[in-house]
């Protein structure tokens, strides 16, 4: 059953390749961008020296610039795959680094 559905899915996307690509990019930009900027904000907050409150506010304020840059990046790359990799791999790296910083074994 699963195999049948996946074949159907792949044929569908082959026929509507452009729409599929664009939808993927939109999802990567919006969802991936949010993850990326939120994780960056958390890391900025934890890595900046000094006052905790200052770092959190700074991280939050910078997150929007990061979000915009990520969205521009996602739509500027040549292939959708590059966009996805470029967003989600750093997300995973940041997530692992966050847990390392907070002493929880991943």
């Amino acid at each position: 059953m699963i195999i049948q559905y996946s074949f159907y899915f792949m044929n569908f996307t082959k026929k509507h390749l452009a729409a599929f690509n664009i939808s993927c990019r939109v999802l990567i930009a919006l969802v991936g961008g949010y993850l990326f900027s939120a994780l960056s904000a958390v890391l900025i907050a934890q890595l900046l020296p000094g006052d905790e409150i200052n770092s959190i506010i700074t991280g939050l304020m910078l997150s929007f610039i990061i979000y915009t840059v990520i969205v521009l990046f996602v739509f500027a790359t040549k292939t959708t795959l590059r966009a996805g990799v470029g967003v989600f791999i750093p997300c995973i790296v940041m997530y692992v680094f966050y847990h390392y910083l907070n002493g929880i074994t991943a």
Partner: protein
Amino acid sequence: MKSRFRQSMGWLHTWAGFAFAWLLFFIFVTGSLGYFENEIDRWMKPEIAIVDDAIDDFEILNSAKQQLTVLASDAEQWYLAYPSKRNPYIKISWLQPANAELGMPKQWHEEYLAPHTGKITPTRETSGGETLYRLHYNLHYVPAVVGYLITSLATLFMLIGLVTGVIIHKKIFIEFFTFRAGKGLRAWLDVHNVFSVLPLPFHLMITYSGLVLLMGISFSPVIDATYGEGKKMHRQFYNESKTENKQQQTINLNTADLSLKAELSHKPVLSLKTVLTDAKARYKNQTVSYLGIIDRNIADNTEQPSFQVWLDGNEGIEFATLLSYRLVDGQIQLEESLGKTHSAAKIYDILEHLHEGLFADTYLRWLYFISGLLGAAMIATSMIIWVKKRQNHPTKFIILIDKLNAAVVVGLPIAIAAYFWSNRLLPLAMSNRAEWELHSLFIVLAACACFCIVRAADKVWKSMLWIAATVYALLPIGNMLTTEHSLLASVQQGDWLMLGFDLSMLCFAGCFALAAVLLKTGQNETELTMKTNVKKNMKGVIKTC
């Protein structure tokens, strides 16, 4: 995505803009109105008596105290607002604690006092200018948090639109003064550029500060991860980030009045009267804008009440300075705020003040308003361009979008006029009157949409413009018929806020009429039509305040 970077950014600019265009138009228009919320409030509460001659601060305090003692004896907080240039009335407000018997939640009440008698002036229940402008981030008919999230998302798309717009318009400054008033699509693009590039600092500032103002909600998981989860921890975070450096000193109250001195000789007594005397003596040339008591704590005398004096701000983009007087260990302590402790909070403050523009005088306020309307015009022209680019192969969908563009771009002003009309026409004794004013705004907006869908595509813009012109032109007449404020009476009484509002309505009516007259039915836009649409969106400047 496309073969070249600029083309990808062009694609992104078009579609990021398309996604939230109508909502962003709504946000820009209702937000821009917020810069004149006090003036709109004045018009929507015509019963309030204007204070036009200087009344002694203490006289006002006496009347206020009389009323508050009667009405708000068990309230936690009392506030008295002194007349100012933009709010020339005496207003008292108090925070009523929750009453379980009557089922009333903890809420604020406010009343206006007549200038010399000190009696309460009953005003109609209305949403006023404040709710109108709050629509731009609360939205309506959705819970507040949902409104914030949708607004944040739309603002993010706006920021992307702005940044991609700058990227694709490389030769931005060379083309600065060489726009062409030609025909067709090129002319519309040039108008769109005028509205985007010239107020660009404003657009970038308002968009970014708007995002920052809502960052606590849109990026609340960040606070969860770095500070703590849950409502309590978030509130603690906000309180901690807002802490201010305070200069505290123990003082003897400065009393200019000998009789007061005799009263105080035995032990220090804090009351609004003594606090006001002290503040005025200490800061001789500054105007007092508010007085307040917080932590009145009638129920349990655990904490001493704090008496607050707000002085009109005269420092850059700060709005006001706060002096707090409190009895601590039998001594009077004066606390003055020196600004936020955390430097990042200071930057947040700057962005907040720039966005809200509370510090702005008449000149800057009009420029804020006009820039906001230019932003709305930028969005309106972009929607029109989207349709025009596809006009050679019109499908049903594109025609529908064209009609709905008219419904939003002209329909929203009509709906706002309906909101003002409802303030005058709804019966005063109606229950939920304030809510129904807002309902009428949205009902008329929906009605405009229905009208536009039904109307023929080549007649829809013209009809809508004429309807808008009529509705706005009749507003001052409606004002005259339903209240005692006519244009003539406002001039005679020196009620500049009322007069300004009425004249602005006539001005908008004129712009809509001009646009309707010069708009040619047909597909080709001409130079003249360009001109009128520019005029329509510039919305005139009349110095009335």
